């Protein structure tokens, strides 16, 4: 395994990006960071800038305007950068699939490493997804 990736898994810093979500997924992510669910016990911290982050969390559909910003953010991220798509909108666009403003799903714009389904996913599901992502990289899953 990549040395950088192994070092990253000790404490993955996440950057949270909403590409046009309804904010429900964002509220659930916020729940994960609060003491009740406390993802910091896995070393997961919210990074203030993409330049400090190892994991990019995406919520919401990639619409025509935010796709450009999403691509730019992914290019700015130090590699290796893992991408996690959270919620039905960023997985398959949900009810916005025929929308004029949502031409492609997120995984056609940037490579996605983990998908967490749900509308919105429960905090437990988000934690499970993140833990599975770490296990997948380690090769123990």
């Amino acid at each position, binding site marked *: 395994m990549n040395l950088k990736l192994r070092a990253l898994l000790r404490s993955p810093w996440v950057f949270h990006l909403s590409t046009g979500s309804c904010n429900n997924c964002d509220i659930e992510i916020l729940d994960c960071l609060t003491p009740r669910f406390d993802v910091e016990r896995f070393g997961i911290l919210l990074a203030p800038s993409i330049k400090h982050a190892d994991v990019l969390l995406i919520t919401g559909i990639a*619409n*025509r*305007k935010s796709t450009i910003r999403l691509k730019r953010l992914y290019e700015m991220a130090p590699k290796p950068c893992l991408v996690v798509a959270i919620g039905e909108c960023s997985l*398959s*666009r949900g009810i916005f*699939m*025929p929308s*004029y*403003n949502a*031409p*492609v*799903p997120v995984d*056609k714009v940037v490579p996605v490493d983990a998908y967490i389904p749900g509308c919105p996913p429960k905090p437990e599901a988000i934690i499970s997804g993140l833990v599975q992502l770490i296990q997948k990289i380690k090769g123990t899953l």
Partner: protein
Amino acid sequence: MTREELLADIKKRFSDDIMEFFDRSPRRVYIEIKPSSIVKIATYIFKDLQARFNIASGVDSRTHMEILYHFTLEPLNLLISLRVKLDRKNPRIESIAPVFRAANWIEREMSELLGIDFIGHPNLKRLLLADEWPQGVYPLRADYEEWDKNAIRDRGV
């Protein structure tokens, strides 16, 4: 001024401009007016009756292009909706943005999403649509068709 006095006053003052007066409920009145008299009536309701301009909504109803201008009169707990019906082929109406600035952005939005031309608008350019969106394609019209050949319209399963 009570509700009845106010409505009678509007009816009397604009008897030539009102096409249909629909008193739907104690809180809701729809007034269909001629498109040419929108500025006159909106100015009167906003400036003289001290109503609040809530929002305008555009609807493509297949036979007409409709705009509803919603005004609230809070002391009377009344919502007045001015309805105008425009020609679908060439929807044009005079802008009310020079009268009150709250109408500026909603008129820009209606012009880009429904293709309604607002005559006399101070800054009628795009508000929400992406830059690559082609000119002359209006996504909220009933006959809108997909123009993007790269768009994926299935869930991939």
